[in-house]
C-alpha cells in the first residue's frame, strides 16, 4: 500500500495534474459561492469538458474532486457574506457566519471557515486513504430502518435549533415536512398537494426552497438597513490568517467531532451533506459551555459546520469507489463520470486500477492545500462585498439567486417557487418562526418517509414490523441518541421557562 501511495504522490506531482488542480479549485470556489450552483452543477458542467479536452481519467478526476472540495468551501463564503448558503451544506454556516460579518468580523469569519474547511477536508482524506475497505462494509449496514432512525435523530435537533421557543420550532419543522410531502407518493405514485400542476409531481426543488428561505428574506431585510456596514476589524494577510488558524486548533473536540460526523454521514449513502452539518452544529451547541452564544456569531458555529461539510467529501468517495453507490448528488455525477471513462467501481478497482485510485486519494490532500492557498489569497476579492451598502446588494442577490435556481433543472416553475418561498419566508421570519427548522424538516421529511415505508414493507415480509425497527445494534444506538437529544431538550426548555417565569415574578409580582 505504501508503494501505491508513493506512486499516487508521483502522479499528483506531474505538471499537468498540478496545473489542473490549481485551476480547478478557483472554479470550484466560484460555483460554491454562487447560490444555487454547487458541487453537483459544477461537476456536471465540467465532466463533458474534461472529456472534450481529452484528459486522462486520472487528471479528469483530479479536476472534478478539486471542484467538489472547493465548492463545499465556497458555499460558506456567500453564507457568511450575504446570509445565503451557496450550497445546501452551508446552511448551518449562516447561523454564526453572517452575524459575525454583521458585527464587522466578516474577514475573520471567512478565515475561520477556510481553516475549518481545510482541517475537515484533510481529516476526510486521511480516512479515505486508510480506512476505505473497512468503512465500505460498515456503510452497507445502514438499511431502511437504520437510515430512518438517523433521520429521526436529525429531526430531534429541532430542539437545539430553536431553544427558548420550542412550539414555534416544532411547528416550523412541521411546515418543512409538509412542504416536503408535495409530489408523487413514493409508494403509490399518487400525486400529493400538486393541485393538478404536472411540474409539482417531482416535488419541490430543495435548493429553490433553500434559497427562497435564506436569500430572499435576507435581501428584503437588507432594505431595512440604513447605515453603512461596519468595516473589518483585522487586516488582510497571512499573519492574521495564521493567528486564526491557531485559534481554530483551540477547539480540537469540536473539530474532531464535526469531522467524524461529516465523514460518517458522507459514507452513508443517501443521507446528504446538509444533515451532517445540522448534526455537527447541534452537537457542538449541545456540548458547548455557552450554548446560548450559538447563533450570535461565534467561531465555533462556523468551525463545526465547515469542518463537517468538507470532511464529507472524503467520506462520500468511500461507497462510490467501493460499490458504485454515490453518497450524495455530487458523487452521483462523479459515478456517471467513472462510467464514461470506462472505470467500474468496486473493490477490485483498488487492485486493478490502483494507480488511479491512489492518485485520487493523494490528490484529495493536494486539493485541500490548493484550496487553502487560493482561499487565503482571494479572500480580499470576496470581502469587498462587505463594503457595499446593503441596499445595493439586493438586486444582484435576487438576480443571482433566480439564475441559480433555474440552472438546477431548467424549470421555470422553480423560479415561481423561489418567489413564493421568499415571500412566505419573509413573513415567517417576522413572526419569529425558525427558518433553519423549516429547512431541516423539508430535507429530512423525505428521508424519514421513504425509509419508514421501505422498512415497513420489509418488516411485513419478515412477519413483524416492530421487531424490524429494533433489530440491529445501529438501530439501538441511534434510538438512544434520539431519546437523549429529546429529553435534554425538554429538560433545558423547562429550565428556560422557569427562568422566564422567575424573572417575570421579580419584575411584576415582586
Amino acid at each position, binding site marked *: 500500500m505504501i508503494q501505491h501511495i508513493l506512486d499516487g504522490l508521483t502522479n499528483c506531482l506531474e505538471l499537468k495534474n498540478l496545473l489542473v488542480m490549481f485551476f480547478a479549485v478557483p472554479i470550484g470556489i466560484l460555483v460554491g459561492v454562487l447560490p444555487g450552483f454547487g458541487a453537483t452543477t459544477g461537476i456536471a458542467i465540467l465532466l463533458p469538458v474534461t472529456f472534450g479536452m481529452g484528459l486522462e481519467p486520472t487528471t479528469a478526476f483530479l479536476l472534478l474532486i478539486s471542484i467538489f472540495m472547493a465548492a463545499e468551501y465556497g458555499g460558506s463564503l456567500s453564507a457568511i457574506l450575504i446570509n445565503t448558503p451557496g450550497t445546501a451544506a452551508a446552511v448551518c454556516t449562516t447561523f454564526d457566519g453572517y452575524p459575525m460579518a454583521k458585527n464587522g468580523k466578516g474577514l475573520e469569519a471567512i478565515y475561520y471557515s477556510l481553516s475549518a474547511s481545510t482541517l475537515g477536508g484533510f481529516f476526510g482524506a486521511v480516512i479515505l486513504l486508510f480506512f476505505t475497505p473497512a468503512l465500505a462494509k460498515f456503510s452497507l449496514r445502514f438499511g431502511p430502518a437504520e437510515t430512518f432512525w438517523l433521520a429521526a435523530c436529525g429531526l430531534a435537533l429541532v430542539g437545539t435549533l430553536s431553544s427558548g421557543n420550542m412550539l414555534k420550532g416544532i411547528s416550523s419543522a412541521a411546515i418543512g415536512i409538509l412542504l416536503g410531502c408535495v409530489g408523487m407518493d413514493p409508494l403509490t405514485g399518487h400525486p400529493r398537494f400538486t393541485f393538478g400542476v404536472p411540474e409539482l409531481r*417531482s416535488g419541490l426543488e430543495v435548493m429553490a426552497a433553500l434559497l427562497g428561505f435564506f436569500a430572499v428574506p435576507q435581501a428584503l431585510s437588507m432594505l*431595512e438597513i440604513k447605515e453603512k456596514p461596519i468595516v473589518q476589524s483585522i487586516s488582510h494577510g497571512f499573519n492574521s490568517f495564521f493567528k486564526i488558524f491557531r485559534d481554530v486548533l483551540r477547539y480540537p473536540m469540536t473539530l474532531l467531532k464535526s469531522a467524524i460526523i461529516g465523514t460518517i454521514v458522507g459514507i452513508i*449513502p*443517501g443521507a446528504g451533506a446538509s444533515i451532517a452539518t445540522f448534526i455537527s452544529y447541534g452537537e457542538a451547541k449541545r456540548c458547548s459551555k455557552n450554548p446560548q452564544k450559538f447563533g450570535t456569531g461565534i467561531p465555533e458555529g462556523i468551525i463545526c459546520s465547515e469542518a463537517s461539510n468538507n470532511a464529507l467529501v472524503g467520506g462520500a468517495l468511500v461507497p462510490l469507489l467501493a460499490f*458504485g453507490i454515490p453518497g450524495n448528488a455530487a458523487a*452521483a455525477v462523479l459515478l456517471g463520470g467513472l*462510467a464514461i471513462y470506462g472505470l467500474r467501481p*468496486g473493490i477490485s478497482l483498488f487492485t486493478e486500477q490502483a494507480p488511479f485510485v491512489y492518485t485520487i486519494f493523494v490528490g484529495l490532500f493536494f486539493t485541500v492545500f490548493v484550496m487553502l492557498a487560493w482561499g487565503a489569497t482571494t479572500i480580499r476579492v470576496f470581502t469587498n462585498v462587505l463594503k457595499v451598502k446593503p441596499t445595493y446588494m439586493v438586486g444582484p442577490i435576487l438576480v443571482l439567486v433566480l439564475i441559480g435556481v433555474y440552472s438546477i433543472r431548467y424549470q421555470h416553475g422553480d423560479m415561481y417557487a423561489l418567489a413564493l418561498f421568499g415571500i412566505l419566508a419573509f413573513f415567517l421570519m417576522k413572526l419569529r418562526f425558525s427558518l433553519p427548522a423549516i429547512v431541516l424538516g423539508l430535507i429530512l421529511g423525505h428521508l424519514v418517509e421513504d425509509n419508514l415505508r421501505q422498512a415497513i414493507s420489509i418488516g411485513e415480509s419478515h412477519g413483524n414490523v416492530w421487531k424490524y425497527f429494533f433489530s440491529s445494534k445501529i438501530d439501538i444506538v441511534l434510538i438512544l441518541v434520539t431519546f437523549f437529544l429529546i429529553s435534554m431538550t425538554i429538560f433545558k426548555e423547562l429550565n428556560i421557562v422557569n427562568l422566564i417565569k422567575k424573572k417575570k415574578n421579580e419584575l411584576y409580582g415582586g
Partner: protein
Amino acid sequence: MIRSKKVFLPITLILIFSLIFLGGCSSQLSKQTEPQGPEKKEEVKQETKQEIKYPEGPVTLHCAFNPGGGVDTMFRTTQAFLEKELDQPVIVKYTSGAGGEIGWNEFSKAKPDGYTITGLITPHIILQPMLRDTIYKTDDFLPIALVSFCPGVVLVPNDSPFKDFQQFLDYAKQNPGKLTVAITGTQSFDHVQTILLNKNLGIELKMVVFATGADAVKAVLGNHVDAFVTNILWTVQQKENLRTLVVLDEQRHQYAPDVPTIKELGYDIKDYSSNVKGFAIHKDTPPEIVSKLQAVFEKIANNPEFQEKMNEAGMGFKYFNTEQALEYINRDVEIHNKIKEDLLKEIK
C-alpha cells in the same frame, strides 16, 4: 415592534419583483415555443414551393431528464457523430421533471420542423399517457431510431443463498409474500417487470420501493432486501457485487452472455418488455426531413465505432429503424395495457 414604514418598502418591492418576474417568465416561455433554427419563418413559406433544406441551423437534442442520466449519456455519445453527419452544431437541451413528462409536454407543443429531436424511453412514454392525464400522447413521437435495448434482470448479492433462478423461484412459490425485491420508483420499468414476474409465474414477490437505483443496490448489498428487479444496466455496473439470475428476454444479451434467459429456463416470455431508448421527432414533421434523419441515424447506427461507444457507456446497443421501433412500441403498449390495473394498485 415592526414599524409600518419599514414593512411598507419591502412589500412594495415584493410586488414589483413578482410582477417583473411573472412577465419575464411568460415571455421566456413564449420564446421557447418559437422555432429554433435560423430564418424559420421564411423556410415555412418556401416549404410548398421548393425542396426543404435541412438542416440549416443548429439541431437540438432535447433531454427530458437531468444531465448525467441515461438519455443524456445516449445524447452525449451520439452528439459528435450527429454533428458530423448533419454538418451543423448539435446542442443538448434539458427540461426535466416528473419522470420526463414536463419535457415531453413541451416537446409535443414544439414546432414539428425536425430541429428538435427528443430522447424517448420506454416504458415512460407508454405509461405516463396511459396512467395520468398528460399533454403529450405516446403517438406524438415518431421514432427515428432506437439504439439502446436493456431487458429486465433479477439480481441477488454474491453471498445470496439463491445460486440460480430455479432456487429463487422455488423459494418464492413456497413462501408467498416473504421474498422481498427492491424496485426503483412506482409505475416504473422495475415495477412493470415485477408485476409481470408475479403474474406470469404465479408468485408473490414483495416490492420495496426505492427512490434511486443506487439506494436499491445499497439495500440489496447490505442484505436488507433479497433481490433487485431492474434492467440489465445494473448487471454491468454491479458485476462484482451482484449476481444476475436471469435475463427477462428471448435472447441472451451482450452484457450477460453467460446468464440464461427466462425462455431458456422454459417459461413463456411473450409478455416481457424491455427498456429501450432512442431518438424521436414530432409525428407531424415533413416527410423529407423524416427520411433525411432516418438515413442519417441509420448510418450512425451502422458505424462500429458508435456501437462500441454505446456499449461502453452502458447503453446496450441494438438498432431498430422507424418501422421496427413502431412495431416494438405498439406491442409494448398492449403488454402494459394488460397490467394497467396492477400498476395503479397501491404497493403493500
